[in-house]
C-alpha cells in the first residue's frame, strides 16, 4: 500500500509529532524547555533496556515514559522558583547532564550505545498514540486545568491571587511534557534499533523546538504540522539532509526575526484560534 520509504518517513514524523506535543504542554503554562531531548533519552534508554530484558514492549514503553515523568517532576521543582531565561538554561543544562550520564552509564552501553531492540514501533501504534495523546490533551485544555495553565501563562501573579496553585499547575504541565517525551523516546528506540547518547543532546532539543516554531507555538496542531512538515522535508530532499542542521538553524533565526509566534502561528487551525480569529474580525 505505502512504500517502505514513505512508511519510514511517516513513522519518524509521528515520533517527532509526539516530541512536538511534549514541548507544547509545558509551554501552555509558560514553561519553555530546550531540554526535551533529555526526557526523550530517558524514555528511550529505559524502554530499550527493559524490552531487551524480555519485558513486553507496551509495558517497557510505559515504564520508560513514567520514569521520564518522575524525573521531570524532580527537574521541575527548582524550575518553579526560576523564570524565563533561567528556566531555559536549566532545561539546557538538564539535557546535557542526561547526555553525559548515558555516555558514562555502563549498564546501557555507555559510549557504545544500546542496540538490538526488536522493531516494535509501527505506523499504527505511533499514530494511535498521537491520536490518544492529542485527545487527552484537549480534555485537559478544556478543563479547569487548562484554564489554570493559560492563566499562569498570561499573568502568574494575577492567577495566583485568583486561587490558582502555581506549583501544581506548573509541575503538571512540565511532567506531562516529560511523560510524552518519554513515550517518543521509547518509540524512537524501537524503530531506530540503536541508540546512543549523541542522539539526544542539545541539538535534538533544538530540533524539537523548531517544530512549533514552524507550525505555530500557541496551538497543539502547530507543533504537529511543523513536525510533519520538517520531517518530510529533510527526509525527502537529499540536499536538505546534508545541510539539515544549517536549515534548522536558519529556520530558527528567520522565524525569530519575522514571526516569533511560529511561522504559521496565526493560521494554524485550532478551536480556540478559530474562535479568536472571528473575534478579531468583529472589532476591526
Amino acid at each position, binding site marked *: 500500500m505505502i512504500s517502505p520509504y514513505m512508511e519510514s518517513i511517516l513513522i519518524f514524523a509521528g515520533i517527532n509529532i509526539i516530541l512536538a506535543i511534549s514541548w507544547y504542554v509545558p509551554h501552555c503554562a509558560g514553561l519553555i524547555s530546550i531540554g526535551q531531548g533529555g526526557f526523550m533519552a530517558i524514555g528511550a534508554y529505559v524502554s530499550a533496556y527493559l524490552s531487551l530484558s524480555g519485558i513486553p514492549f507496551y509495558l517497557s514503553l510505559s515504564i520508560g515514559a513514567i520514569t521520564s515523568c518522575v524525573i521531570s517532576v524532580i527537574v521541575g521543582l527548582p524550575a518553579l522558583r526560576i523564570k524565563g531565561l533561567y528556566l531555559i538554561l536549566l532545561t539546557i543544562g538538564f539535557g546535557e547532564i542526561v547526555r553525559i550520564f548515558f555516555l558514562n552509564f555502563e549498564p546501557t552501553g555507555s559510549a557504545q550505545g544500546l542496540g538490538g531492540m526488536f522493531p516494535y514501533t509501527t505506523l499504527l501504534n505511533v499514530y494511535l498514540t498521537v491520536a490518544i495523546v492529542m485527545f487527552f490533551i484537549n480534555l485537559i485544555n478544556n478543563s479547569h486545568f487548562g484554564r489554570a495553565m493559560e492563566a499562569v501563562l498570561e499573568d502568574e*501573579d494575577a492567577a495566583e491571587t485568583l486561587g490558582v496553585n502555581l506549583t501544581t499547575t506548573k509541575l503538571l504541565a512540565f511532567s506531562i511534557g516529560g511523560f510524552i517525551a518519554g513515550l517518543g523516546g521509547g518509540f524512537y528506540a524501537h524503530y531506530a534499533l540503536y541508540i546512543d547518547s549523541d542522539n539526544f543532546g542539545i541539538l535534538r532539543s533544538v530540533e524539537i523546538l523548531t517544530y512549533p516554531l514552524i507550525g505555530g507555538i500557541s496551538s497543539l496542531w502547530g507543533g504537529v504540522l511543523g513536525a510533519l512538515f520538517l520531517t518530510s522535508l529533510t527526509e525527502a530532499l537529499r540536499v536538505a539532509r546534508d545541510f539539515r542542521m544549517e536549515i534548522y538553524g536558519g529556520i530558527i533565526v528567520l522565524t525569530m526575526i519575522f514571526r516569533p509566534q511560529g511561522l504559521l502561528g496565526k493560521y494554524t487551525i485550532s478551536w480556540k484560534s478559530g474562535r479568536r480569529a472571528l473575534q478579531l474580525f*468583529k472589532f476591526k
Partner: protein
Amino acid sequence: MPILEVKKLTKYFDGFHALESLDLAVGLGSIWAIIGPNGAGKSTLFNLISGLLNPSKGEMYFKGVKLNGMKPNQRTALGIALTFQNLRLFPKMTVLENLLVGQNCRIKASLGKVLFRLPFRPLSEEKRAQVFVQKVLEVVGLLTRKDELVSNLPYGDQKLVALARALATDPEIILLDEPSAGLNSQETSDLNRLLKTIVENGKTICFIEHDMNMVMEISDMITVLNFGVKIAEGPPSIIKGNLKVIEAYLGTEE
C-alpha cells in the same frame, strides 16, 4: 470579630518605609475605604494581604486565621479576593474564561477525573462552576458579552470584568484597588450601586480610592494613610472635617 485584621504591619523596601506598624480591623459586612495621597502605602497593604508580598514585621488575620506565610492561592481559597489597579486581566481569554479561572480554587477534581470521565459528560463540579459564573455575570451585567475577548472591551467593561473575576472566586471579602479610576460619573454611580448590592449579599468590601465623593457616599468606615502611617480613622462624617487629613492631601502635589 473583624473579618480582616492586621496588627503592627510593617514593610520596608531597601530602607524605604512603605508601611509602618499599621493596625487595622475591618468589620464584617462593611464597606471600608482606605484613602491617602499617592505613595501612602495603600497598594502595598493590599499586596501584603493578598500574599504577593511578605511583610517585614507584623501579622495579618482573616476570620481569626493567621495569614502570614500562606501563599496567595491559599488565601483566595479562604475567601480573600482582590483586583489590581492596572486590572491584569488575562488578555487572550474571554470574559467567561477569565471568570472561570476564579472558580479554580473551588473545583477539587483531580486529573484522573478529568481524563477518564465519560465522554460528553462534563464534571459536576465544572457544571456548578459554570452556573455560578453565569450568575456573577448576570449580577454584574456582562452576561451578553461573556464570549468576547477581554482585550476587545471598552475600559469600563474591563473594570467590571476585573470585579466580576474577583467575585467569581466566591469570596467573603473583596479588596478593590481604585475601582472607580477611569470611570465617568454614570459608571461610578452604577459601580456604587453594584458594591452596595454585593454587601447586601453578605460580603465585605475594602477598597482604595481617590474619588472622595464615592468614598463619602458609600463607605461605612474610612482609614487614612500617609507615608505608611495611619493618621485618621472613622466614619465619613468624622473624616470629612479632619484637619490632618486635609493637610495631608493639600500638602502633597495632587
